[in-house]
């Protein structure tokens, strides 16, 4: 498969009062044309910061991209001028954020906010861009698109607002859509609708999707390949089937065990004990060593590199040294 996005050793840090927090600490992965890749991990492991870094939207200060490259169609987005980057944002790469309730500007109509993106990138006049925006509303199945075009964000439900965000993101047919937990903030019933909509639009429009979530169940239905992230690094990479059948990293095992299982007594989820480490205070050696049930001597002496296992898998764990 042709590579669309190649993130290589991406490092993003935040300057805090207590020191430099290495929040994204050497993340590497690829997304092919039209491929759907999931990025999973516990809250605070750096998923959103990774996404924002790709778009060069990390707030500076306090954030700063400290190294690595983001090749998009072979061009390094981290080195092109801001003017060029603006032509990529919303046009070739779009993002749908975690918080539909606050991500729309309260003083402009929803339609205007979608229309604006279309007018900007497609150099269309007011009438044409409006027509296209209404079309986008229809595409994401907002009922009464002409009427809803004139609605303000506060007049819409969370699910509808997320549809507006999706309409905005897809309005210029991007090659890559980054969906950062697009349904987490919504009611459970609405969550499924939004994910179904995304899946359907992906089929229809054929863009690549980087789906960020902390919910492995969502990943199972939607993606082809999974990246598991922990404390600022990717710790496991695998096709979705293989990951569920046989996880190759103890952290992934822990995540899978914490999924509710059919037939298991309700309310007995085994969470991974402990917390994601503070990026300012990582454990020595393997980042997962303070929580890992399989820790052995080797783990504390040095950080494991990414070991490739077979043709399409990789794990950042000393147990996989030598590809085992």
């Amino acid at each position, binding site marked *: 498969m042709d590579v669309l996005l190649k993130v290589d050793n991406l490092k993003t840090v935040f300057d805090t009062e207590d020191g430099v927090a290495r929040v994204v600490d050497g993340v590497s992965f690829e997304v092919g044309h039209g491929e759907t890749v999931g990025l999973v991990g516990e809250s605070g492991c750096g998923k959103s910061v990774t996404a924002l870094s790709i*778009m060069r*939207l990390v*707030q500076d200060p306090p954030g700063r991209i400290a190294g690595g490259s983001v090749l998009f169609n072979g061009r390094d987005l981290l080195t092109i001028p801001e003017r060029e980057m*603006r*032509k*990529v*944002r*919303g*046009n070739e790469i*779009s*993002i749908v*954020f975690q*918080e539909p309730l*606050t*991500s*729309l*500007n*309260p*003083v*402009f*109509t929803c339609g205007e*906010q979608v229309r*604006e*993106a279309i007018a*900007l*990138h497609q150099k269309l006049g007011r009438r044409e861009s409006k027509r296209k925006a209404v079309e986008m509303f229809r595409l994401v199945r907002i009922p009464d698109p002409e009427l809803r075009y004139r609605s*303000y964000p*506060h007049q819409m439900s969370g699910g509808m607002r997320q549809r507006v*965000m999706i309409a*905005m993101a897809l309005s210029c047919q991007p090659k890559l859509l980054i969906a950062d937990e697009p349904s987490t903030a919504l009611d459970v019933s609405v969550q499924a609708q939004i994910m179904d909509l995304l899946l359907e639009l992906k089929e229809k429009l054929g863009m690549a999707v980087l789906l960020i979530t902390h919910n492995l169940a969502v990943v199972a239905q939607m993606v082809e390949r999974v990246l598991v992230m922990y404390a600022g690094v990717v710790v496991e990479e695998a096709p979705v089937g293989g990951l569920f059948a046989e996880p190759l990293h103890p952290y992934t095992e822990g995540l899978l065990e914490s999924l509710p299982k059919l037939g298991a007594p309700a309310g007995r989820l085994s969470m991974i004990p402990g917390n994601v480490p503070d990026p300012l205070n990582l454990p020595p050696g393997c980042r997962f060593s303070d929580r890992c049930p399989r820790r052995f001597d080797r783990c504390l002496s040095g950080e494991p590199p990414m070991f490739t296992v077979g043709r399409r898998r990789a794990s950042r764990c000393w147990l996989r040294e030598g590809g085992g």
Partner: protein
Amino acid sequence: MARFLARRLVQSLLLVFIIITINFFLLHLAPGDPLARYYHPDIAPETIELMREKLGLDRPLIEQYVKWIWSFARGDFGISLQYNRPVASLLAESIPNTLRLTAGALMLYIIIGVALGITSAVKRYSLFDRVSTVAALFVYSIPSFWLALMLILFFSLKLGLLPSSHMQSIGIEGAGHFAMFVDRLRHIVLPAFVLGVASAAAMARYMRGSMIDVLGEDYIRTARAKGLPDRKVFLKHAFRNALLPVVTIIGLSLPFLLGGSVVIEKIFSWPGMGRLTVDAIHARDYPVVLAVNFIVAVMVILGNLLADIGYACLDPRIVYTRVGESK
């Protein structure tokens, strides 16, 4: 909208009534005598008592009040004790001048304040931001009469650039519209600046804070993620939201400006309401003081109403009736 306005109107009328009533009694209870300037060895005390009777000033206070409020309600502001002229005609001469001065100050301070505040917020922690922060604090703490004198000293006496008093030059009437406009503009610059500069400094601080808050919002990130250039992100998406809290502050600044104009008009010999009021208070010219008080109360309430309407126009989340309820 109509219901909102009607309710506000009723509330405002009640408020004005209470204000002028309180003022009436305060004024009459304060020491002083409107006829004091007739105290003179050549004028017999009986004559003064006769005048007092004719003016009704010897009647019980409550009776004077009822008489006064009754004529007031019919739009009759009475006769000035000092000038022996209808108060209405005195006001008709001075109100437009005061409005001109406050409007000038208002425009000046909004433009300067907003521009400085936004630039500071966008270039946060830059040299510009730091300098304007210190400058704002400095300007805000200068007494306006001192600033007025210094500016007169510098621009009028030393450089001879701008006139130091009055609204226009003597004999300018015949010189054509444009020349007259320029002449008036030159006259208004100094007083309007002195009147507005402290508010401009405060405004710059509010605007900066408000803008910085807004720039941290999620929808600003969305605007950037769309690919919009900074100019659009700041001036379209951030500006309108940042303006919301500031609109209320503009409304609240009106009493401050009108109060300030009293001092400024006196210093610059501006023939406005402020000067009229100071003179009237000195002379215990009750009808004039009370009428001015009424006008100012109406202006302040009107200003706040306009601010509320402006707010509602800027923020689609506000429904007019709610604005009324929250008060």
